[in-house]
């Protein structure tokens, strides 16, 4: 099982890497465009600060046997939701993966949508579907905050839950743009127009972020499973060693006793 997970984690990692050029480029464009307009120009950028309904996308796995992967993430999600509820906010959840659904259903949270059995066939279409639901919730159903919690894939051995705000889109940090040092960006000719490009790129940016979160979660799950299964195999080997030793000792002890009895019997006859 460790080897299975190891080969899957490699594939998932490749998918993350092949998605990276696109998402980085989109992010770069969004940042450079958003820096030039005020936050009021687009509803996805606007933060009306009411904050009384919160939507959280929770990305967990369908299967278990992956160590603390789901537990860590769900603990953080749970704390987040509790905290918001204590502040008097209404929360709703979109959940991906059976583990998260079961955990949150037991704690009687309300689901907006649930997705199970998506792993192994994660594609951009799924991200688009999620993005549509979430953007609609934000724009039309008076949710004021949309967050994602997923497990960030750092390396095969290290994954950790990451909570991030999806909407309203965080205003870009000006330094970050300066750091890119792209003076050319200021002089683009836009087609159809800067606002037009911004209009179409923001929803796409949302989709890309969700897609990335899904890929991250998938790779993390395999990584976590690989580590967990490696530990399990090692523990099992250790236990087999200890038990074999014990078995041999018991056997030897019983042979020794039998020998002693035979010798004692022979002595008694002599």
């Amino acid at each position, binding site marked *: 099982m460790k080897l299975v997970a190891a080969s899957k984690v490699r594939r998932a990692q490749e998918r993350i890497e*092949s998605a990276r050029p696109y998402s980085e480029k989109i992010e770069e464009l969004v940042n450079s465009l958003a820096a030039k307009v005020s936050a009021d120009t687009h509803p996805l950028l606007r933060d009306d600060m009411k904050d009384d309904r919160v939507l959280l996308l929770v990305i967990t796995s369908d299967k278990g046997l992956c160590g603390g992967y789901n537990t860590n993430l769900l603990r953080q999600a749970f704390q987040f939701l509790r905290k918001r509820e204590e502040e008097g906010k209404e929360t709703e959840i979109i959940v991906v993966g059976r583990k998260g659904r079961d955990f949150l259903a037991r704690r009687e949270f309300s689901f907006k949508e649930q997705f199970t059995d998506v792993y192994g066939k994660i594609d951009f279409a799924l991200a688009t579907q999620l993005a549509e639901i979430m953007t609609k919730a934000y724009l039309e159903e008076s949710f004021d905050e949309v967050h994602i919690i997923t497990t960030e894939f750092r390396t095969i051995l290290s994954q950790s839950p990451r909570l991030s705000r999806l909407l309203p889109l965080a205003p870009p940090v000006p330094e970050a743009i300066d750091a890119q040092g792209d003076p050319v960006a200021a002089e683009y000719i836009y087609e159809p127009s800067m606002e037009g490009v911004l209009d179409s790129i923001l929803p796409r940016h949302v989709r*890309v972020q969700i897609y990335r979160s899904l890929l991250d979660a998938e790779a993390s799950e395999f990584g976590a499973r690989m580590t967990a299964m490696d530990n399990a195999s090692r523990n099992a080997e250790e236990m087999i060693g200890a038990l074999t030793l014990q078995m041999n000792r018991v056997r030897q002890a019983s042979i020794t006793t039998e020998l002693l009895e035979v010798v004692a019997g022979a002595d008694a006859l002599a």
Partner: protein
Amino acid sequence: MVEGKMMLDIVTPERKLVSAEVDEVTAPGFYGEFGVLPQHTPYLCQLGVGVLSYRTGSARYFVSVIEGYAEVGPEKITILAEHAERAEDIDAERAQEARQRAQERMTGQKSEEELDFDRAELALKRAITRISVANQSGLNN
């Protein structure tokens, strides 16, 4: 970088499709097709649905592109496409079937909602694009 050429990268959310040094690119822009030669002024364009082609020397390649952006610089052009397929990867039969389905949907349900019609129209447009890309590569070979 060879003098008088530019880098073309076509990336989709799923992968990097093309990375090549080219002489010329034509792409389906928002207001219509546009062509780019090296040393173009910085240009950021929203893409529609259509055929993108690029030329290296005398070889011309075709790619179907469905929505995205083109970022053009003097020596580099980056295409961010939501979907893109090289001509040789397109399954012409499937594209034909998709076209047929879309056509049937468009003629069949006139009374249905507007949304469905738009969707079918978009599907038709995509199918036609893919078919024409597949055909063009056939002529080329």
